[in-house]
């Protein structure tokens, strides 16, 4: 079995030289995943964000992480392949190279022992370069345009769903009975005190005599 040191010293550099666009894609996917995890943890530790914002941004971060990975793998290599195919079809050719020479070069690739010329090596580099350029373009489209739009939509949906679930739970655990607002002047105690302090009651108290039966009659008249 290959040792770890040997793997990093020979196998990975070999892959970098042979397939630079693959290396750029897979390493980007790795770093963006690690970055997403770090950002998710930092959001949870942030004390200045309100709970609602924290939740929304956390969903967004986790969505970003998954989406970056999916978008990168879907777009980046596909764009790279398109770029190479364009170059092989004779588009975007550099100075001094004609479309016919590209066709000849592709024929030579299929023949074993065919002699490669200077122009052929120029075409090979050009095809590789177009592939790398298209891969980077694919990464830009995937990471900076497609992933942010989709993640915002997903984070919004997730946030709405969680709020709905929360409201449902509240409704189940604490049912609210229908109530009507109570007017202050309709409470019996306040009604009694207000009548005591009214002008009519003052006159009534002044007219009170020593005979209690008369006073009662006065009160209920």
């Amino acid at each position: 079995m290959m040792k770890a040191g040997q793997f990093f010293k020979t196998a990975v550099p070999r892959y970098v030289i042979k397939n630079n666009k693959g290396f750029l894609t897979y390493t980007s996917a790795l770093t963006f995943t690690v970055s997403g995890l770090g950002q998710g943890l930092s959001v949870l530790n942030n004390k200045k964000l309100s709970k609602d914002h924290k939740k929304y941004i956390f969903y967004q971060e986790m969505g970003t992480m998954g989406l970056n990975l999916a978008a990168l793998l879907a777009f980046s290599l596909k764009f790279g392949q398109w770029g190479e195919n364009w170059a092989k079809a004779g588009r975007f050719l550099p100075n001094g190279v004609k479309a016919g020479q590209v066709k000849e070069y592709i024929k030579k690739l299929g023949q074993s022992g065919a002699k490669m010329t200077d122009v052929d090596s120029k075409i090979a580099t050009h095809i590789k370069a177009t592939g790398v350029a298209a891969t980077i373009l694919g990464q830009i489209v995937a990471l900076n345009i497609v992933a942010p739009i989709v993640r915002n939509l997903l984070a919004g949906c997730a946030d709405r769903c969680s709020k709905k679930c929360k409201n449902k739970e509240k409704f189940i655990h604490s049912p609210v009975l229908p109530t009507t607002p109570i007017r202050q002047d309709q409470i019996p105690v306040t009604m009694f005190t207000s009548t005591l302090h009214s002008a009519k009651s003052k006159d009534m108290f002044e007219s009170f005599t020593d005979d209690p039966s008369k006073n009662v009659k006065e009160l209920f008249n």
Partner: protein
Amino acid sequence: MVTIPRSRKVAFGFNASKCFTNKAANLANTKPSMQRLYIGATALVTQTALDYAKWTNPFADDETRKNCATRTFAKMIVTTGSGVLARIAGEWLGKNGIEKGLFKIPKGFEEVIKATYKTTAAQKNELISLGMKLERIAGKNPKEILDTLTKKKYPTAIGAVAGVAMAVVSVFVADMLFIDPITNWMLDKCPWLNKNKKAKDIDNKQQYEKK
């Protein structure tokens, strides 16, 4: 009527595809640091705008959108900065590590180069695309050319590997430590980004004036 000669029209025009194709050979050896820079620079503009715009972030309210956009802006500065710097450091380590004897080119690595660049012409072309002048290659025999290419290619490749390894560590640490302090600082310093803060400031001012 004055007609512009055809040659002059060409001289004033900008042919983007020709410009791209003539410089394209350099892109075949794009370093991870440059790739991260291209992605980060475009992300700084597009991702911030997409988070801030209502039609691309329709479910969030105004304040959340502002928070998101501020956070994305801070995030892009930190992640791009740390990613590019870590990769540059790795690439420097790869390049100078071989010169100073930290790494050695493994035996038989020439075969890997030979398998990728099959002819001497292809190897010469690759050396030119790496920035070597034609005069320096002209007098060399095929073995010397292969050696020179191996010495040029291996440090770049090991540098790319070291750069990515460093970036993985640095991105995790930098993202955890710096994104939120920078976001909070931006929200504190820019009142138009933080509605609550703006309202609090106005309240404080009114209370001060009353006193």
